[in-house]
């Protein structure tokens, strides 16, 4: 039996990630390990404040970690959400990524280990 899945890892709902970069400082620091729940948004929508891992809209092979700021008003059609880094020092230069299609969100950060 052959299963065709977009991501073989999505068979298992938990994923491990290592943070690189400082845009989520001081919440997450470079080198922090994250346990991510890939199944978190199967039934519920991302909520403002959630920290999520997502595919970079400009470079799908790259995975980013960001915080959900808000969902666009009336975004009931599968929708999208706005994400941004936590580091205020980077804010002068950082363009908001959003809105990011929901399909690019890989999961919710559950805990740091």
């Amino acid at each position, binding site marked *: 039996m052959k299963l065709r899945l977009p991501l073989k890892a999505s068979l298992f709902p938990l*994923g491990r990630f*290592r943070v*690189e970069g400082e*845009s989520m400082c001081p919440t997450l620091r*470079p080198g922090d390990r994250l*346990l991510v729940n890939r199944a978190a948004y199967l039934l519920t929508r991302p909520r403002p404040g959630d920290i999520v891992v997502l595919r970079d809209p400009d470079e799908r092979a790259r995975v980013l970690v960001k915080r959900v700021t808000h969902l666009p008003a009336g975004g009931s059609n599968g929708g999208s959400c706005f994400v941004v880094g936590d580091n205020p020092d980077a804010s002068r*230069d950082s363009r*908001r990524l959003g809105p990011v299609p929901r399909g690019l969100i890989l999961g919710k950060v559950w805990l740091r*280990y």
Partner: protein
Amino acid sequence: MKGVLSSSLRFLDRVSPPATAHAHCDIPCGIYDPKPAQIAADTVIRMVQLITDLGAPGSDAIAAKAHTSQVARYTLVKEEHAQICKKELLILWSDYFKPDHLSTFPDLHDTFWKAAKLCSRNKQNVDMQAAQELKAAVDRIAEMFWKTKQPA
């Protein structure tokens, strides 16, 4: 419990490394450089020099007009670059330098404040001394900047 979970996950990480989640800025950030301020300060010096070298206006009307126009153009560039210099300095001051840099450079705020004031003075006047002082102040800031880039 947290300890057991954490060490199990860390063990897993050693067996198979975790994926990377990039927390980089959305556009390259942290690109700060004192060079634009230094170029602007050099431009101010050059414009002061050019205005000074221009000498007296010619006697006939056409030459006088040409002279006025030339002074106006040099002055415009001088003011623009004094303003660019100020803007670039403020970016370094407010965005690049962090509170902990103050322990290395206790005179950081004073240096920036005086340099910013020198930008204004160079807008108002055609004064080679003020222009040289501005360059010295910006060079001093550049020196501080590059010192922060050296490994501790």
